[in-house]
Every structure is written in C-alpha cells, then in structure tokens.
C-alpha cells in the first residue's frame, strides 16, 4: 500500500472500497481452495462406493467372507486379500514398532550432537526411496536372500510354531512383503517418535536422573509414559501406510488366494490384488469387485487415519498428525 491518499474524499472512498474488495476476493479464493479439498475427499469416497455398487448388489456383505476369486465362474470374495493385508501389516508392525522406538530413543537421547543430524536425515531418506525401487530390490535381492537363508533357519529352529512352515524357493510371499513394509514404516514411526521424545520437558528428565535413575530407567519411567499415546498414534499411522501400500507389495508377494498359518507362501493383499489385476480385468462384475476391494481398503485406511488423528489431537490440538 503506497501513500494513503487524503486529498479527495472520493478517492479515499474508492481506496477503501478496493481494500474491502481485495479482502473479500482473497478470503473467497482461499475458502474455495479449502472447500475444494473437502469436495475432493468426498468425491473420492463417493466414486469408489459407486463403482463398487454392482458387486455390492450381487454379493452384499458376504463378499467380505467369501474365499473364492474366480473370474470364470463370476464368483468373487475378499477374504484371502483381507487375510493377506492383515498378516503382512501385523507382522510389519510387530517388527517395526520396537525398532522404530529404539531408533527414536537413540536419536533423541543417545546420539552425540554431530551424529544426531546425520543419522536422523539418513533415516528420513529411507522413507524417501520410491516404493517401486524398494520393490525391485525386494523381488531380486531381498526375496532370494530370505528364501535361502532366513526362512530355512526360522523353519528349522522355530518350525514347531505353525507360522514358520516350509520355506519357499522363490522368496515371493507374505514374509518378504512384511519385511519390505517394515522397511517402509520404520522411518515414519521413528521420526515421529523422535519428535515426541524430544518434546518431553527437560525438567522431568533431569528430575529422574537427579533422583539416581539410570538413563534407561529415566526412559522407561518418564519418557515412554509421557509419550505413550503419541507413539501409539505414530504406529497407527504406520499401519495405515502398510495397509495401503500397493506397488512394493505386489512385486514381492507372489499372488494367490491361499489362507493358512505359514508366513512364507505367496498371497495377495487388497492393494496388491487391485494393482496386479489392473490390465487383465474382463467383465464389469470383476472390475466392480476390484472396486469393492478398494472400498474395503478405503474404509480401513480412513479408520486408521482418523483414530491416529484423534489420539494426536487429544494432546496437541493445534497441529495435526505429522509424517
């Protein structure tokens, strides 16, 4: 705003009017953009549900418990893929959670000053690797390694647990997918946890140390209880990521509709089934059934997301979930 014109009242009024119009225009424009975001999310939900309609009318909720996926006989069911999604995500969470919390603790409490920034950015870089690259590495390097070294070892030492059945030759299967997912979610959970741990008031930490607690006792008695719900939210965000990852999982999971105890055989998740059938789908009913899978995935993703946000907002109402 340059010199304020005071010479003529007419000019002044015009100036004020322009100012008010400018305010109104910017307010309106930004409101429209924000509204567009709302419309976008609404449209995504609506479109997916609409496309799933044909399969929903045909199979109803029994689709969720149906175990067959047979394009020839036009019988479709989602259970094998829900099983695959649940197993890969849960195994990934079990592997990733302790690892990520330990990394968060190292970065916030242990690492020397110079190392902290470097290791922290390296962990974040791990999250930046495109999933298709990770999948390529998974299919050609990690899979064969797991199949020839890790899976036989797990089978021979822990084979009495039905989870560790006969190893596979190709290395494509639930277990490989779970390991890839672990690599993808560890950096996410670790960086959120680090921020949470750093946010614990210094007075509390120093108080515990002054009372004679060792560093680990301070972590267990002060830091972890103070950040418990935040870490839980971070883990749920990681779960949401694991549920929805399509590409890397499609590359390493092998494909199949088997449901069983062992972690090693090939299978499919909801997302990988959709991704791997993208070109082959023939009938309208098959496409609609794939959309039904997407709708289930959407609902699971929304639930994970909202739960995490509710937890985060309970004690940091201004800022939402970070990733």
């Amino acid at each position, binding site marked *: *705003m340059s010199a*304020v014109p005071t010479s003529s009242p007419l000019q002044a009024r015009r100036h004020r009017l322009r*100012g*008010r119009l*400018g305010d109104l225009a*910017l*307010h309106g424009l*930004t*409101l429209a*953009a*924000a509204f*567009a*975001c*709302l419309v976008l*999310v609404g449209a*995504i939900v609506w*479109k*997916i549900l609409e*496309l799933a309609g044909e399969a929903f009318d045909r199979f109803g909720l029994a689709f969720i418990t149906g175990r067959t996926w047979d394009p020839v006989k036009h019988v479709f069911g989602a259970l094998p893929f829900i099983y695959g999604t649940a197993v890969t995500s849960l195994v990934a969470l079990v592997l990733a959670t302790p*690892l990520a919390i330990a990394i968060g*603790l*190292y970065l916030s409490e242990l690492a020397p000053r110079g190392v902290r920034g470097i*290791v922290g950015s*390296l*962990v*974040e870089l791990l999250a*930046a*690797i*495109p*999933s*298709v*690259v990770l999948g*390529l*590495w998974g*299919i*050609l*390097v990690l899979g064969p390694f797991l199949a020839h070294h890790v899976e036989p070892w797990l089978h021979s030492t822990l084979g009495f647990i039905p989870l560790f059945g006969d190893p596979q030759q190709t290395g494509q299967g639930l277990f490989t997918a779970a390991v890839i997912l672990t690599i993808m979610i560890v*950096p996410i959970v*670790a960086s959120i946890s680090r921020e949470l741990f750093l946010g614990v008031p210094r007075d509390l930490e120093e108080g515990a140390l002054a009372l004679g607690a*060792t560093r*680990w*006792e301070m972590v267990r008695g002060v830091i972890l209880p103070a950040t418990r719900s935040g870490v839980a939210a971070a883990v749920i965000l990681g779960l949401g990521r694991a549920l*929805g990852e*399509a*590409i890397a999982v*499609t*590359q390493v999971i092998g494909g199949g509709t088997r449901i069983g105890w062992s972690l090693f055989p090939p299978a499919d998740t909801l*997302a990988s089934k*959709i*991704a791997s059938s*993208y*070109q082959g789908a023939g009938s309208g009913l098959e496409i609609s059934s794939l959309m039904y899978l997407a709708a289930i995935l*959407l609902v699971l993703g929304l639930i*994970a997301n909202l739960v995490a*946000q509710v937890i985060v*907002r309970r004690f940091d*109402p201004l800022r*939402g*979930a970070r*990733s």
Partner: protein
Amino acid sequence: MNRYRRRRIVNRVMELIATVAALVAVAVLAIVVLSVAKRGAGAISWDFFTKPQALFGQPGGGIANAIVGTVLLVLMAGAMALPVGVLTAIYLTEFAARRVAVPIQVVIDVLAGLPTIVIGIFVYALLVIGHTQSGLAGAFALAIIMLPLIARATQEVLLLVPSTLREASLALGVRRWRTVLGVILPSSVGGILTGTVLAVARAAGETAPLLFTSSIFANTVQTDVTKPLPNIPVLIFTYSEQPDPALHEQAWAAALVLMAFVLVASLAAKALLARSRRKLVG
C-alpha cells in the same frame, strides 16, 4: 551393590539395542542404495538417456521416453497442486476460525493418509472410464498426492512468520489481503518452494496412481498430454515383473536414475528448509 550393577548393565544393554537399531536402519539404506547402484550402473550410458525404449524383445534402447514423460507428469501435477495447496494453507492460517479450521485440517490429513492406489482408482473412475488413459489423468492423480504435502508445508512456514510482522503491517493500516500477499507470502516463499520440491520428489516416485491412469504407453517420446505418458515408475514396475534379465538390468538402471533424483531433491530441499526456517525464527 549387586543391584546397582544390575541396573547399570540393563542400562548398557538398552543403550546398545538403541544404537544397533539406528545402525540397522542406516545399513538398510546403504544396502538398498548400493545394490541399486551396483546393478544399475552397468546399463547406464549416453544411449540410456537419449534413446527411447527398445521394441519388445529387442536389445538396447533407453528410457528417454519415460524421462520426458515423468518430467511432464510431475510438472503438470505441481502446477495443479501448488495454487490449491498454498491457498488452502493461507485460508487455514490467516482467515479460518478454529471451528472451521479443525475439520478442514482433518480432511487434509486424511487425504495425505489415503492409500495411493485408491487415489489412482478414483481418477480412473473420474477421467479414464469412458475415455482413455492420459497424461492429464496421471498428473491429476499425482496432484492429489502432492496437494496435502504442499498445504501442510506451507502451513508450517506461515505459522513461523512472526506475528509481530503481521501486526506491524495491520497497524500501519494495510489491508489484510495486502498484508498476506505483500508481507507474509514473500517472507515464506522459500519454505513453500522447498515443500513443493519435497512433494515433487515424492510424486516422481509414485507408481500406484499411474497404474490406472497412464500405464499403457507407447515406446516413443510422447509429449501429447491427452495420450498416456510413458513414465519411469511404471516402466520399472513392468520390467520387474518380467522374467527377462536384460529387462531387469534396464529396471535397475532406471531405478538408479529415479532414486538419485528423489534422494538428491529431498536432501537439497531439507537443507534449504532448515536454512529458511532458521532465517524466519531468527
């Protein structure tokens, strides 16, 4: 005394576990980067960047068509997402009442957390069914992924702008819209740009949204955005599913190019972000 020693040992063990965990994460990054570099470097040559894909079953060829397509897709996506993202962030930080801001914030975070394949299917339903795959559809899908990232990054820098700056401008009688456009935006433009670069780096590597929108493409350089644009992620994905080792080599090399771009872009953006943040906070 014994008890004290036990506590110290437990402490040591836990410290060791945390250190090892951090080492494992760094080691995994190193292993992935090195094995991609080792396998990909062999196929990288001048031809690899300047020649399009070879016809199916023929040797040689490069990924020129996919590089051009990915650049186009990401540029278009950025052009779509940047204005909407920045305007949304301005609305949330400058205009919205808390009652309105919270639900919008929730929706943006939901958008950021949606499975990317679901976004791909949405755009497929909206723009591809009844028409054909196209570069525009692919760019739109990538834009939806970039939108919440840009909005969030912008919001973070806008919140860092000192309120004294805002109040000084308003106290001088400057209108709100001129305060926003003339004072607040210029002082946060660095942060917005780096946020955008991070979003571009993320979008450049996304495959799932393109699978349904821009995956059946010609092996020639394509600049017509109404046709499906060749792109690096889908190329890697299709090659990795083939049994042919020659295609695997090409996939590794393409992965090396993609990964190098993404990692360098994110590193540079993060370094810049840290600098511009320091400048704002003082």
